[in-house]
């Protein structure tokens, strides 16, 4: 018979790591809370059991959508067994959820995770005694190292007994008994105690569930509150913690001297300090980009472009096709279209691979969780909470899961603003654009990438101020409480595996979608409207189409070159397309053969300021279609999504225009109508940022419509 095993535990207790161990899958894990935002299913082959990984929760009184996912699953989907993962290095807090799970009456096994770290601290946990007190089986494991997996699976082979709930003080137990009597028949026998306790805690969802019976139990609750002179939920929480304190004192022999700082605490004193936190973060990101763009990754990219494609692939394929007498048009399509486009994109693969590797290491050590903590201070000043930074961190990989991660934010206003702004932070698909601009005009300086990263964060902050003033998005930021995980040495296998997955995903996209797009771009750039081959690319269909709209971007400095406009538009399908398009239009294959540099050709077309303006526009404008689709899901309507895309594109246009116009004024002394318009735009933006109610007229209109 197949059984269902639910994995439940606090955020960052290692549920997904255990899930991956048990099922052999490779779900995204991270050393920060909130990585899992929806439940995931897998199979434990040894047991023939379905295992469900639930989002992390601190208690069964949920506040955010992903916490509701966990609670509803445990309540209504009736799993056969719950494996409650408890972080053994922080038992007091983790057992709070355990006491609530035990109330639910579901057969439970406690997986005491991170036992290796407990041992490293010199502490000991009496697992047998803990098992006896909790009335359920307890298995010590290390999900990261794979210790204790066999024992856990062996334990799950026999479905455990239903556990005994942890008893509260006598007065509370009496009240729970009275409430249970009232609820008998209305809720199932198994869940009776759990509902009674939740009703005693005045849990809104439980009160809603019992309907009119609430009136019959309020007297009992008031009686308890009067006797204890406290709110009932505080009474229950306090008694739970008392019980937990007693349990921990019985089972944990700690070697830790009270008040002594751990290594993590000592590091945190420096890296999260008020004054050093941000400069250290900027320094770390500079080093990351320096290694991935300028040095190791850059050398790799040079080799792939100059040797692998220029000397091996492109001449090899071309000469082979010519040797077997393939028609020149087909050779041109394969070499100048498909290979040139995909080659231009894949040329950046070494830089991306190094960047992926370094970011995974930063995530796994626990440093990225500190960044969210540091950024909370900054974000709060701008009306956003540090919770908004977690989606931004995830968005550095891909905007789609980044936008989806915004659902961990309780406040609807914060959630919407975060979903609308997550894609401002450069995702991995935008990295080749950054590397291209850095290589073409700025001698592969890591500062270009660093500037891109911080321009993205700045755009989020500015948008936080602007959008929170919009009538439908006003409100105070969500509270941000985040437990900082201890620093951990990342597992080399897990790090390499995670980075390779990202690399493979990029290669696959280049080999499918980008290649297809490059084929179409080549066709449109090789023929005119009468479908005759053109000698000059400027006579092609694509040049005609590009020239029809390129004037829009003239104030941004690069609208004079239709290739840049075409690259930007094809980038809406996928940001890598910007590079693929450039590869085809600037003759990556020809350049590779002649030993020239694609960067040299591109940089000769527009000034460095225009190049930077092009980069900023592509960083901030409407994201790719996949990300727009994710935004639609999180914002709930096409109208709101359209407004978000319009906002992003308008902001990108304004910022790029200001950068270009004021840049050329400062560097070349060029002054014109667009310089004046740029200054007016700066003034308008400053007014919106400073004014308390810049959209008052819209608010008034909205109120009138409502009346």
């Amino acid at each position, binding site marked *: 018979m197949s059984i269902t095993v639910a994995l439940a535990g606090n955020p960052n207790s290692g549920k997904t790591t255990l899930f991956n161990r048990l099922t052999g899958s490779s779900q995204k894990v991270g050393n920060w809370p909130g990585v899992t935002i929806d439940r*995931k299913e897998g199979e434990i082959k040894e047991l023939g059991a379905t295992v469900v990984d639930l989002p992390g929760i601190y208690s069964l009184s949920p506040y955010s959508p992903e916490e509701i996912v966990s609670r509803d699953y445990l309540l209504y989907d009736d799993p056969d067994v719950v494996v409650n993962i408890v972080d053994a290095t922080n038992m007091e807090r983790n057992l709070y959820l355990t006491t609530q799970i035990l109330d639910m009456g579901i057969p439970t096994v406690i997986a005491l995770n991170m036992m290796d770290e407990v041992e490293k601290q010199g502490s000991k946990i009496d697992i047998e005694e803990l098992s006896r007190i909790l009335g359920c089986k307890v298995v010590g494991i290390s999900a990261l190292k794979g210790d204790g997996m066999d024992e856990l699976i062996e334990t799950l082979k026999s479905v455990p007994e239903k556990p005994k709930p942890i008893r509260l003080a006598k007065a509370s137990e009496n009240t729970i008994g009275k409430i249970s009597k009232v609820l008998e028949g209305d809720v199932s026998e198994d869940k009776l105690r759990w509902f009674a306790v939740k009703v005693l805690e005045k849990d809104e969802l439980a009160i809603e569930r019992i309907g009119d019976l609430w009136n019959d139990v309020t007297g009992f609750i008031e009686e308890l509150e009067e006797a204890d002179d406290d709110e009932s939920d505080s009474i229950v929480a306090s008694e739970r913690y008392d019980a937990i304190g007693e349990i921990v004192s019985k089972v944990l022999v700690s070697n830790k001297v009270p008040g002594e700082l751990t290594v993590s605490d000592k590091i945190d004193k420096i890296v999260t300090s008020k004054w050093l936190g941000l400069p250290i973060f900027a320094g770390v990101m500079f080093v990351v980009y320096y290694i991935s763009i300028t040095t190791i990754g850059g050398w790799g990219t040079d080799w792939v472009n100059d040797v692998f494609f220029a000397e091996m692939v492109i001449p090899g394929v071309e000469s082979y096709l010519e040797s077997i007498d393939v028609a020149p048009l087909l050779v041109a399509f394969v070499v100048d279209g*498909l290979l040139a486009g995909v080659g231009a994109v894949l040329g950046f693969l070494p830089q991306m691979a190094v960047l992926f590797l370094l970011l995974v290491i930063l995530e796994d050590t626990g440093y990225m969780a500190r960044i969210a903590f540091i950024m909370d201070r900054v974000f709060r000043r701008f009306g956003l909470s540090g919770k908004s930074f977690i989606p931004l961190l995830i968005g550095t990989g891909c905007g789609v899961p980044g936008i989806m991660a915004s659902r961990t934010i309780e406040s609807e206003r914060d959630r919407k603003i975060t979903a609308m702004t997550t894609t401002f932070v450069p995702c991995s698909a935008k990295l080749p654009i950054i590397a291209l601009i850095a290589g073409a005009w700025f001698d592969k300086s890591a500062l270009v990438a660093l500037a891109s990263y911080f321009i993205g964060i700045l755009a989020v902050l500015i948008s936080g101020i602007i959008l929170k003033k919009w009538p439908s998005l006003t409100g105070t930021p969500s509270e941000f409480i985040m437990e900082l995980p201890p620093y951990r040495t990342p597992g080399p296998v897990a790090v390499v595996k995670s980075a390779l997955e990202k690399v493979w995903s990029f290669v696959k996209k280049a080999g499918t979608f980008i*290649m*297809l797009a490059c084929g179409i771009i080549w066709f449109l750039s090789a023929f005119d409207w009468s479908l005759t081959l053109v000698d000059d690319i400027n006579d092609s269909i694509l040049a005609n189409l590009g020239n029809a709209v390129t004037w829009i971007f003239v104030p941004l400095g690069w609208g004079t070159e239709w290739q840049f406009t075409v690259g930007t538009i094809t980038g809406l399908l996928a940001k890598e397309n910007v590079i693929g398009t450039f590869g085809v239009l600037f003759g990556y294959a020809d350049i590779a053969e002649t030993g020239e540099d694609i960067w040299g050709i591109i940089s000769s077309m527009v000034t460095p300021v225009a190049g930077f303006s092009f980069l900023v526009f592509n960083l901030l404008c409407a994201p790719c279609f996949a990300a727009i689709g994710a935004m639609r899901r999180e914002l709930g309507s096409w109208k709101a999504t359209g407004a978000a895309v319009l906002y992003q594109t308008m902001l990108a246009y304004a910022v790029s225009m200001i950068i270009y116009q004021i840049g050329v004024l400062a560097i070349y002394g060029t002054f014109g109508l667009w310089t004046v318009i740029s200054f007016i735009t700066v003034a308008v933006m400053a007014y919106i940022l400073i004014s308390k109610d810049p959209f008052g007229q819209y608010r008034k209109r909205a109120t009138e419509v409502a009346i």
Partner: protein
Amino acid sequence: MNLATILVGLGVAAFLIAAAYFTIKDFRTGGCASCKNRDKCSKKR
């Protein structure tokens, strides 16, 4: 048109059709990242 051109042309066409198929499939599911059946699916990205 010689045989080599026909064979290479057919090969390239087949490759592009496969690329189009996988691209459309990804777009229709919104990419695996947002798919609820991601864990049950053997073809996940």
